[in-house]
């Protein structure tokens, strides 16, 4: 498996979920200024082909449903990167009725980036860290999600109807 992991780390396709303000930092990372293709990471339009799910900023309950459906549509192995303070602990929306505070209650986040918003270098750092971690088999959030499926669903069910918004939910 470790050889497989090594190859996985070299070629990552990223799905960026950009409803938060942090999305503004993505264009320099993707385009020629920082050029993340140097690390074999390219943006991907559909969840089915993507390996990384990048959550940029806050998630409202409404968008969380879509994110969970997207995540469950992605093929394993898959990784989630939380981007900015909002995904860690709510950030400046800590007392908003509409947004979720801790992303790790609903999705298995492999890596968080601090900042409000993080600069492109911090995002590049995260990608390098993620590549290393994937190659060494450190990040296995997708396994955690399968193992603790009931716990995640219980947390999600507090906010919305999980039957309607999950893929293959018995």
């Amino acid at each position, binding site marked *: 498996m470790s050889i497989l992991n090594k190859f996985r780390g070299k070629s990552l396709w990223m799905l960026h979920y950009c409803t938060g303000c942090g999305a503004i930092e993505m264009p320099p990372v993707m385009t*020629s200024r920082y050029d993340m293709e140097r690390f074999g990471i390219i943006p991907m339009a559909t969840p089915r082909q993507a390996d990384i799910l990048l959550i940029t900023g806050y998630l409202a309950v409404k968008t969380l449903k879509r994110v969970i459906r997207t995540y469950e549509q992605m093929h394993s192995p898959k990784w989630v990167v939380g981007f900015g303070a909002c995904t*860690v602990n709510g950030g400046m929306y*800590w007392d908003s009725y509409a947004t979720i505070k801790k992303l790790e209650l609903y999705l298995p*986040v492999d890596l968080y980036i*601090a900042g*409000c918003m993080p600069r492109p*270098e911090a995002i590049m750092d995260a990608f390098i860290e993620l590549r290393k971690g994937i190659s060494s088999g450190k990040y296995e959030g997708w396994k955690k999600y399968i193992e603790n499926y009931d716990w995640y669903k219980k947390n999600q069910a507090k906010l919305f109807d999980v039957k309607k918004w999950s893929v293959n939910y018995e």
Partner: protein
Amino acid sequence: MAWNDILKPLSGWKFLFKKPHTIRYPKEDKIPSERYRGIHTNMIDKCIGCGSCEKICMNQAITMKEMDVEVKEGTTNLRPVVDHGRCCYCGLCVDICPTGSLWLSRDYRHLSEDIDTFIIDPNVKEKEREGWQKAPEFSLIPPERGKMEEIPPEKRVKSFMEVFVGYTEPIAKEEAQRCLGCGLCVDACATHMHIPDYLKAIREGNNEEAVRIMFKNNPLSEICGTVCTHFCENVCPVGIIGEPVAIQWEKEFATRTIEDYKKIIDTTIKEKKERVAVVGAGPAGLSFAFYLRLKGYKIDVFEKYEKPGGMMLLGIPSYRLPRKVIEKEIKFITSTGVKIHTGTQIGKKKTFKELLKKYSAVFVATGNTKPYTMGIPGEEGKDTLQAISFLYDVNTGKKIDLKGKKVLVVGGGNVAMDAIRTSRRLGADVYLSYRRREVDMPADELERKEAKEEGIEFMIQTLPIEVIREKGKIKAVKYVPTDMDFSEKGKRPKPVPRMNDVRTLEVDIIIEAIGQGPDLTYLEQEFGESLKIEKGKPVVDKNLMCSIKGLFFGGDMANKQNDIVSAVADGRRAAEGVHNYLQNK
């Protein structure tokens, strides 16, 4: 197909040797701009732990945690810890920080799988750091305090009217807004007045509530608003930005808007049987009487002089503390049922032992009445005055004419300031001799400034060594300049006289104001060995009870600070102590 179609695309080769636009991170780094706001750093020694950053943070990202740091005067052991899962790097905490210890560094990279690691302790010890700091010209709090009207020096030296006019309501409200609400002043105040609470009440225009809060800790609030050593203002963190919040003047403003305290302060009393005697109707005795009376005890106060008030009435000149202020406060205290017997000295006709038999407890607060002397040749004799007796004479209305005379006052405390300014008002040319530097003077800065404005000559770093007399009258004083010896750390520097440089100054009168101590002779006569005394002051426990049961000491004669507010605090503490003592008896 034209030639152009083949040749034109080749022009792209001209970019071959140009530097690429891409920043090849991590091989080459892009340094953020100079004022980039990243993760916090806080100088742990410079921070005073006021908690202003915690209060201003909109995201509740900052928590004040107790840390293992040295707690000095005006600081706490609390230091900020920042949750970067909530911080949005707005920099309000940096802008409000009064010491400027909190910065936002240019370091912004923090990756982790664990959200608990985003709670970062920013406290550092190193001096060298870079980042975004508070701009020196910008402050969220106005650095200058509200201006107060003042009588000009030329006019005020001619009379004993009060120097300061007092705040007006709009200025007082504005001034109260400068308070950060940190509460460091409460720790510093001897009687722990809840300063942020009453400043808030003044800000909201509720002066009655403000006065109610004041009287919980200090029944002489108006006097303390007029004359106080204001330790609160000395530790106020706003003082690091500019001038500290004018806490004393705010107090004066709020109390003076109230005509009669009886109307707004609840003084319903459940009567108790026990009777308690108080010796000395000074600040300590009055505050003790007030608080113990509120607990229901019957109080008798014995005062040696004809009027109650003690050193406030006899020692402080009326241009600093108008007599009507003292009368107003004492009227309120007596209205609760405290009986004051004036002209009754204990220790002569009535003895302390009699009092102890007759009353359940006795509180003694007779103050510092015995002045120290310099002990130099020619000192004893006519025209050498003691500052407190001189002030007593002036304040009791005795006619003293100093017009055209040259007066030398020796000392650097507030009593010395009172002496020089009083003699200036009586028409004398005044010189002040002090043996240390001006910054070492125990007197208030404001007092010193005003004294200089009134035309008093300060002879700093001088020491009188001999008084020259001609036919019993003072003719001149010999004095020497001094040098400062800083060898003892943590203490005030020691003056070293330059004995080979003797100078003379022609004077007519010398007033000594070099401090005073308690007069315990009558107590010693009565109790002898059973009363423990150390360094000239009676030894007391935390309830202020001495070695004899039922006998309590307070005020100047028992504490080291020797000021009104400490005496008031002693009175309040002793009231608690007596109450506990009588409950557990």
